[in-house]
């Protein structure tokens, strides 16, 4: 899709990161490092929640920035920089998940045997934990983090991506739609279902963060 000159100019004026990326386009290495410093934690965080592995998330984040650098010469600002960047993140994560899924097909039997009685489905794990025989007590920060992470993992891939972009990148529905290549209405439904699923998964913990 071609981007009009006025659109590009508008984003250039509005978004300082677009201006940085335009400097990167002109081979300004310092601008590229600045962009990485601004976004690397955010990119790694999103990728970690998408692929579930920290090391892999860092490798993928480097791949994302490499793609940014490689496509610098053809960069034309047609959206906020973060929207453009997270479109690349989404593509990289999708490719990685496909590769992981292919590998898991081979490993799934062994993994199921090794996990013993612990359910493989995150939703089921949360429910099992919540219905345990432990007395009611306050959750500490890491426990809460772990429970919320499992709840996020229980979402399907699209819901998870939409939630991460909405929650952590504070993107509008329009920006999420552009990032994920979907319509605004589809994102509205997706986020609504994601919120409802999260609410269901976290229901036992909603009352002041206690283990029931």
């Amino acid at each position, binding site marked *: 899709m071609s981007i009009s000159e006025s659109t590009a100019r508008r984003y250039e004026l509005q978004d300082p990161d677009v201006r940085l990326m335009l400097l990167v386009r002109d081979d300004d*290495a310092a601008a*590229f*490092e600045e962009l*990485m*410093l601004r976004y*690397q*934690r*955010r990119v*790694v*965080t999103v990728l*970690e*929640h998408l692929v579930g592995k*920290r090391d892999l*998330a*860092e490798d993928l*984040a*480097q791949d994302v*920035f*490499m793609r940014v*650098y*490689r496509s610098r010469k053809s960069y034309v600002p047609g959206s906020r920089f973060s929207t453009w960047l997270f479109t690349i993140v989404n593509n990289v994560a999708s490719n990685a998940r496909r590769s992981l899924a292919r590998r898991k097909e081979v490993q799934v039997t062994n993994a199921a045997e090794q996990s013993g009685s612990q359910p493989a489905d995150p939703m089921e794990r949360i429910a099992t934990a919540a219905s345990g025989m432990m007395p009611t007590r306050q959750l500490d*920060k890491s426990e*809460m*983090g772990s*429970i*919320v*992470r499992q*709840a*996020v993992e229980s979402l399907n891939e699209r819901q998870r991506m939409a*939630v991460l972009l*909405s*929650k952590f990148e504070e993107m*509008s*529905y329009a920006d999420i739609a552009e990032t994920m290549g979907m319509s605004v209405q589809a994102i*509205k*439904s997706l*986020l*609504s*279902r994601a*919120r*409802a699923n*999260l*609410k269901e*998964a*976290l*229901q036992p*913990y*909603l009352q002041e*963060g206690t283990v029931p």
Partner: protein
Amino acid sequence: MTDPTAHPDAKTEMDELLAAYLDNELDDTERSLVETRLAEDETFRSRLDDLDRAWDMLDALPKADLDDEKFVRTTVEMITVAASQEIQQYEQQRKRTAIIRQAGIALGIVALIGMGYMLTQWRLNRPDRILVDNLTVIENVDELERVDNIEFLEALRKEGLFTGETSDES
């Protein structure tokens, strides 16, 4: 009071409305309608609270704790390596292209020479060329037919009487 479990579609619609409200994605009219309903409908309000609290719990998700400098350094190193590989590939590709181009030019020249040779051969051997070469004989065919002695005709040819015909000695 609304019972969202009564009809699944109604519940979905309610969730979409509340999610959009929480995400600040409603226009003024829709927002006003939601707020009016929130004031009147306890179930609606309770659902909003649950969705909002579950959303707030996402703040507990661990954030990436990176060594920023190291990440930048290693990424730049990777890009540098990749860029040098790309330059090498480009150079190799350029050399291959140059070789292919030179080979193409050489082949073209050979083809042109071949075509020139074939054209010349064709022009030299075409049937009307023989007729032209033997025009003098054709013009005098009636007289020459009267001569029974082949040696006599050979002698005439050697003396160059048949203009345009090449002698055996030449």
